[in-house]
């Protein structure tokens, strides 16, 4: 029936599930991804979901990748089409030679299919309805039944799926056995009625290693627990809400006093983002480690307080799980579009520290580090995640913690130091690094108190509108920002095999697609040195990298090439040498996109030598 030879691929293909949201498909789909991991084969799943609770289309895409390419690939090799609303688009999106899996209970006209794909019909509704009477059960078990059928088609080991079901329903015997039963209903039907396996197959491998499978938001929240955050104030906003929810869950497990049962943390759902950041700043001013999690619109609302944090020098940690803007934008789609908004947030001359984790493991590390940095630098630290890292399970190295590590509480003058007669000037640069000492409220009966304000003041925190006093303070803040350069995570450089005049700068969730793209570009003969920026302010090695290359591509997921703007602005370099490579349709950037954009530009740059052309 196919005009084209069916795709044949082991451990390297993309399966996309098209569902209706609210139908309970998410857990079955996630189990599919986990089951492949249990085969020792890396997967990279992504949720593509609407800003809605029930009834709208949702997709779950699983890239099966023995080679370990965790970025989105683009294209679909097998579509599990469970949503009639999106049928036409879903069928059209299958790669030639690909596979369509659908519920064949009701006959479909042949015009609804394609000739160049393999169509696999399983009467899911019929099987479900003949087995279950309860409508909710019918809906939920239908998902498990298609999982069973897929396991047969893709030659997966059913024991591994049963093991996962066993772990999920541990202690709930009835649910456990009924799920296993549903799995085999689908599997057996496929084995008896279809040619199994198809060209796409999962074979056991050993490429997963000790890696873990975790969402970036959960990892960042765990980083906050390990990093000693005791106050969290937040306002629900997609895609950041799961940070606060995960923090709550982690704290319930790990932060209660075993004897009294009391909480060693305080979490407040604010009435808005203004209150959330206000609570964070109040708590940090008073010496607790505090954070909020938000997304673009929340950042916009918080900017007045962010300026206060900068100018009055109060620590704060803001986790920004970026989504597509501007305004409400696309709340459930990913972008890296708040770089400028965060780097220069608030009125007046301000600059803020940004951290760019590439995956959940770095989200954990950088989240914990953010609290040290915030207290050391006495300013706002942004942890810049995005929806792609934050809300998807990502395979990453295991989380690590050194038990000898102590928190860096920064320069805090204690009652003893004040008693010794140390000179306390809240905004006095005693060490030349631009960072002054602070005192916590209530430290000493007669020494060390001061009045915190957003108005200008002298080195001893006394109100002043003198121009020289104001400028002196603003200059110290510049020194402090220079100090920050050497405290934040440094860029990581990876050079091409052969020396090259071309480089590429990238950051955050672009990382896996970039790594994969390098391979594709090398195959086309393009050699590129890579620099992954992990923080702002930029370390001096960014300037060196720019100096060492004729052209540097800046790959990012926003329209205006915001990181490039920041690099140009902060390094004062010729923008012509920085080539923007931007992807901003709300889907995660792919290796194919990067390789094509850079490859095409490289091809244009190649000038054929004149003599060769004439001869």
């Amino acid at each position: 029936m196919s005009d084209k030879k069916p795709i044949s691929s082991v451990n390297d293909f993309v399966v996309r599930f098209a569902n209706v949201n609210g139908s309970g498909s998410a857990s079955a789909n996630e189990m599919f991804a986990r089951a492949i991991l249990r085969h020792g084969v890396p997967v990279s799943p992504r949720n593509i979901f609407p800003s809605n609770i029930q009834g709208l289309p949702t997709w779950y895409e699983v890239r099966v990748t023995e080679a370990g390419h965790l970025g989105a690939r683009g294209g679909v090799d097998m579509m599990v089409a469970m949503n009639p609303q999106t049928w036409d688009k879903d069928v059209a999106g299958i790669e030639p030679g690909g596979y369509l899996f659908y519920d064949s209970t009701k006959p479909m006209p042949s015009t609804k299919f394609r000739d160049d794909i393999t169509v696999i019909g399983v009467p899911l509704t019929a099987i479900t309805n003949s087995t279950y009477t309860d409508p909710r059960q019918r809906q939920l078990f239908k998902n498990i039944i298609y999982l069973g059928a897929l396991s047969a088609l893709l030659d997966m080991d059913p024991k591994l799926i049963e093991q996962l079901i066993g772990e999920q329903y541990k202690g709930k015997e009835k649910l456990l056995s009924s799920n296993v039963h549903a799995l085999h209903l689908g599997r057996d039907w496929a084995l008896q009625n279809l040619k199994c396996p198809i060209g796409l197959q999962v074979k056991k491998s050993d490429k997963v290693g000790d890696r873990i499978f975790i969402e970036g938001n959960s990892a960042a929240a765990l980083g906050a627990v390990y990093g000693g955050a005791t106050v969290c104030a937040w306002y629900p906003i997609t895609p950041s809400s799961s940070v606060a929810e995960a923090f709550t869950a982690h704290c319930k497990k790990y932060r209660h006093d075993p004897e009294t049962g009391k909480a060693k943390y305080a979490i407040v759902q604010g009435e808005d983002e203004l209150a959330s950041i206000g609570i964070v700043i109040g708590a940090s001013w008073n010496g607790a480690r505090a954070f909020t999690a938000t997304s673009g619109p929340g950042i916009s609302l918080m900017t007045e307080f962010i300026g206060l944090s900068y100018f009055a020098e109060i620590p704060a940690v803001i986790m920004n799980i970026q989504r597509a803007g501007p305004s409400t934008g696309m709340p459930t789609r990913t972008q890296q579009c708040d770089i400028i908004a965060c780097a220069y947030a608030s009125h007046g001359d301000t600059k803020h520290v940004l951290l760019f984790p590439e995956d959940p493991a770095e989200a954990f590390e950088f989240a914990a580090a953010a609290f040290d940095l915030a207290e050391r630098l006495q300013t706002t630290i942004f942890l810049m995640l995005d929806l792609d890292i934050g809300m998807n399970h990502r395979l990453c190295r295991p989380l690590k913690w050194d038990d000898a590590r102590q928190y860096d509480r920064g320069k805090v003058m204690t009652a003893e130091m004040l008693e010794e007669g140390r000179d306390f000037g809240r905004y006095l640069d005693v060490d030349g690094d631009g960072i002054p000492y602070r005192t916590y409220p209530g430290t000493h009966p007669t020494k060390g108190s001061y009045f915190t304000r957003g108005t200008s003041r002298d080195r001893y925190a006394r109100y002043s509108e003198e121009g020289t006093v104001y400028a002196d303070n603003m200059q110290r803040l510049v020194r402090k920002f220079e100090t920050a350069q050497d405290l934040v995570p440094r860029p990581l450089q990876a050079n091409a095999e052969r020396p090259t005049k071309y480089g590429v700068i990238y950051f955050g969730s672009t990382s896996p697609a970039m790594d994969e793209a390098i391979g594709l570009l090398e195959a086309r003969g393009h050699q590129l040195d890579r620099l992954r920026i992990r923080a702002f302010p930029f370390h001096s090695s960014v300037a060196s990298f720019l100096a060492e290359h004729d052209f540097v591509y800046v790959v990012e997921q926003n329209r205006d090439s915001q990181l490039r703007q920041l690099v140009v602005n902060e390094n004062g370099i010729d923008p012509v040498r920085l080539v923007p490579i931007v992807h901003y349709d709300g889907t995660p950037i792919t290796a194919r996109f990067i390789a094509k954009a850079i490859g095409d530009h490289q091809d244009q740059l190649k000038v054929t030598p004149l003599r060769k052309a004439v001869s």
Partner: protein
Amino acid sequence: MTYIAKPKFHHPGLKKNDLGYTHRDYEGKISTLCAGCGHDSITASIIEACFELSIEPHRVAKISGIGCSSKTPDYFLGNSHGFNSVHGRMPSVLTGANLANRDLIYLGVSGDGDSASIGFGQFAHSIRRGVNMTYIVENNGVYGLTKGQFSATADRGSKSKKGVTNTDNAIDLVAIALQLGATFVARSFSGDKTQLVPLIAAAIRHKGASFIDVISPCIAFNNHAGSTKSFDYVREHNDAVNRLDVLVGRDPIAVDYAPGTVQVVEQHDGSKIALRKIDADYDPHDRLGAQTFLARHAAKGQIVTGLLYVDPDAEDLHAHLNTVETPLNTLEADTLCPGSAVLDRINASLR
């Protein structure tokens, strides 16, 4: 000017409190407000209340928003940390500070622009949450620092200094605080120190969200005929339901009014409030009654003052969140960090 330090010397015979502090130890910098400003009288009352309660001055955190009222924390408790934050955002900053260290006393100072307009939401939600604080609104019905615009507490029909009549309805913060569940609600007048000082003292001793609306005439922009927040108008329309004394294991604060029926309210911390009722029917434990009473008198153009409602057994936000007794800001890695062994188990559960 705030950068001018007050002279340190004082009369050797100045009265000392239980901790050996004099009034001077509770003062701050010299006020920069207009001479005769009602806010300065409130400042004096706060100083008096803290002195009388023998509070260690440095154990108070003074937090304010923006505006004339919000400048005042610089003028009292000079040995306390102060935070002149962002317009209308004192309540959230105070909430965060309170979460970080439950052992300090939190004094939130705000104005009617700060709390009834730009910060109306934050005012409401901090009260809802039951943050343990004393929230004082220095209410003059006008924007002083920007020279005389109406605020949201200006009464409908009242006239600005320029002769403009206010056509918007007024927000009564006391009525709102009652509705939102504040567990200590009072109103007073900056010119009535005998009523205000014990109210502030009782509010500080109250464990929960204490709210005091203090009508404080603006000498520059809202003290003219036609204003309903002028000294003359408030004196004429003031209807006090009670006067009180606060007893903290020592002699009651002297008050100079005729005794009526006395009702003693014991607060959670053991301190007692002796309420001398002026309106014999008024019951300060009846939230609904207080709301009705307030509405009835407002309709008659009367400004009800005194302790309008108190729940002596109130719970605060820390109780709701079940937080540890030790201030969160003193906890370190040894108690906060679950450690590598737990992390290994977490890793194992994620495979």
